[in-house]
């Protein structure tokens, strides 16, 4: 069979670029150690969140992608060009695109493995949940990585040498980190910075990636962000390809400015479109989701089909006798009172976490499952006002997939680790039992 030299060469070049990358200590430090450092830095700040780091994963992964694209790719390309490697490649009888594509694919793998490493280590070190939508996360990664690699290609074309790559890369990296919603969350940026961020791809990258971790709807809700990334990435990629230089001796001519303008105009177009379509509105800390639940919605919840309190699923012990007569109850109640997830500053999350405890005990068929469910109910009533608790329980019932749940609590003696979906389903069941009692529709 006759081989296809373009494809064959592309694959060989891709594979060799990867191999050489893994032989370079410097490339390994920048490619993998720095992302891990960023993970630990974020972890040290957000480890107290529940669950830790979950709401920062979009930012964290965007930083890694930006670093790999704005620094890693152009540094490698320009260093090779300065040495004369690309000058020698130029003599090969293949299209420019196949050689550049091999380099881009290798960089995609390097950045992809660094991002996967971050997700894995976040899970192992901090217990950060994995993405809600794994397949969509891969798609989101590509949607973010490809535009950023286009920017990297443009930086490589514009920079005459490696120090110039650092300077140009910082011009992209620092603004996005500081005021682009990548390093510093949008909600704590001043209003002007929030608006400026709408002109930068970093904000849209964070949005696309974060949705894969926390938004039950996932990527379908990120239409504009995906559009912005495609526009900015395509403009940068085309400009970078047109300005591609094989030889360090070739300097840019004036026509290069036109292509740079094309790349920058894409940022402007995205920002103006966002402004015109009302997408540059101020981002504020989100109102608790349960607050949007109305009394009418709560009243429509039914209780007839609930399992009985002594049945296998969702057992619930009767109200306790005076304290002191049930040592387990006192002991578990004390542990639960000190349990950090149950003290989440967000009332909605606090309730969801406590409901998770009842759910895990029930799924685990714990010997005290009924008592634990009763302790949780008592705890909820002492911690929350009646009206607030009603709304939160209705929110859990009506939106079981929202917020976060706990799936294991060995510190409470609950050793099993049931699937999150089952915990959510059982939490909603207990929420109905509790709400029914609060509203007087179920008698204890």
């Amino acid at each position, binding site marked *: 069979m*006759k*081989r296809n*030299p*373009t494809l*064959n*060469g592309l*694959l*060989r*070049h891709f594979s*060799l670029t990867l*191999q*050489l990358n893994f*032989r*370079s200590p410097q490339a390994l430090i920048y490619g993998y150690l720095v992302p891990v450092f960023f993970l630990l830095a974020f972890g040290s700040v957000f480890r107290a969140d529940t669950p830790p780091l979950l709401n920062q994963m979009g930012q964290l992964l965007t930083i890694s992608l930006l670093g790999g694209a704005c620094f890693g790719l152009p540094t490698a390309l320009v260093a*090779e060009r300065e*040495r*004369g*490697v690309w*000058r*020698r490649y*130029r*003599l*090969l*009888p*293949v*299209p420019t695109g196949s050689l550049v594509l091999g380099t881009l694919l290798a960089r995609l793998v390097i950045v992809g493995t660094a991002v996967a490493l971050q997700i894995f280590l976040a899970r192992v070190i901090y217990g950060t949940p994995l993405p809600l939508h794994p397949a969509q996360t891969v798609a989101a990664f590509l949607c973010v990585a490809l535009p950023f690699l286009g920017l990297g290609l443009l930086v490589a074309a514009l920079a005459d040498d490696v120090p110039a790559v650092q300077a140009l890369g910082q011009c992209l990296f620092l603004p996005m980190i500081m005021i682009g919603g990548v390093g510093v969350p949008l909600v704590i940026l001043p209003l002007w910075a929030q608006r400026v961020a709408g002109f930068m791809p970093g904000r849209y990258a964070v949005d696309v990636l974060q949705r894969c971790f926390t938004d039950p709807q996932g990527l379908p809700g990120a239409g504009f962000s995906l559009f912005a990334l495609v526009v900015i990435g395509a403009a940068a990629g085309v400009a970078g390809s047109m300005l591609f230089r*094989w*030889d360090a*001796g070739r300097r840019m001519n004036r026509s290069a400015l036109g292509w740079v303008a094309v790349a920058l105009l894409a940022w402007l177009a995205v920002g103006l479109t966002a402004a015109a379509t009302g997408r540059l509105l101020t981002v504020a800390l989100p109102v608790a989701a349960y607050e949007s639940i109305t009394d009418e919605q709560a009243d429509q919840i039914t209780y007839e089909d609930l399992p009985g309190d002594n049945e296998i699923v969702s057992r619930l012990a009767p109200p306790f006798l005076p304290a002191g007569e049930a040592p387990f109850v006192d002991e578990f109640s004390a542990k639960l009172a000190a349990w950090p997830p149950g003290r989440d500053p967000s009332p909605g999350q606090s309730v969801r976490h406590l409901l998770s405890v009842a759910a895990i005990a029930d799924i685990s068929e714990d010997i005290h499952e009924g008592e634990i469910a009763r302790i949780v109910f008592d705890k909820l009533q002492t911690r929350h006002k009646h009206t607030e608790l009603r709304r939160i329980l209705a929110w859990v019932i009506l939106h079981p997939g929202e917020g976060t749940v706990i799936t294991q609590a060995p510190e409470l003696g609950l050793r099993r680790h049931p699937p999150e979906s089952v915990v959510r389903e059982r939490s909603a069941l207990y929420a109905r039992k509790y709400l029914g009692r609060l509203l007087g529709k179920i008698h204890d």
Partner: protein
Amino acid sequence: MSPPLPASIRVGDLTKSYGPVPAVDGVSFEVAPGEIFGLLGLNGAGKTTILECLLGLREPDKGLITLNGIDARAQPREARRRVGAQLQFAALQDKITPRQALELFASFYPEAAQPVRLLEQFNLSAKTDAPFDSLSGGQRQRLFLALALVNDPQVLVLDEPTAGLDPGSRRELHRLITDLKSAGRTVLLSTHYLEEAHQLCDRIGILHEGRLVATATPAALIASARAVPRLTFRSTRPLDADRLATLPGVVSHEAQGDGWSLGTKDVNRSISALVQRLESSGNEMLDLQIHRPSLEDVFLELTGRTWQDARPEGSDET
């Protein structure tokens, strides 16, 4: 009588300017199959620009370039597929090994030479898996020469293949290039080493300020020189300049340090007469050297510049 073989390389009226500065000005030459043709010139003469235009690295302003019958300007990729090249300013990644480099470059051609055989041919077997940054200058140049042969080309373009090498490595490269000619390949090389051009090339084209000022075999170039052999000598006692001018065959004379330099059209008769003249006056010859015309003289006549004055820094040619 069979018709002459078509030229492997044909360059016609090649012109290239960098802004207002002409780098190559109407250069034309042909290289026959199996021939080694050398472009000889100082730095900035236009050698590299011509080779880069041939290889498609630079777009000429005008001119014809055919490589193995292919119009290199109209079909640059096809031309590259059939030509092997080694560049003066090129390198490989620090950690790539000769085996990896050969396998990579071979993968871009539909039919390619076996990397293992090239490693053997260029005496790199011991360095097969050594990183590029650990290779000596000579080993690197041999690797680049091997890379130029991965597509088994009939035509090779080599830009200053021995620049910066020590004499031993240069001799080794000369042997390898001669082997290429023996294998029937056509070689176009550029050099700023007179000795290399003389020793390696079947024909030489002398470039000066972007123009090809002469093209011939080394012997024909030297034979065409207006320069005559020169005798340089010293004697124990001073000599009368007027008497030296009357020696048979002598056409010029000039003092050189504490001796003399005589231009002569008849070396034997001039030496014989000089010795007799010294003996008759009780003088004695301390030393005598004969300088035959060389490429350097040809270069001086054609360009008005001496090679010694203009040779590049770092050149170790004497």
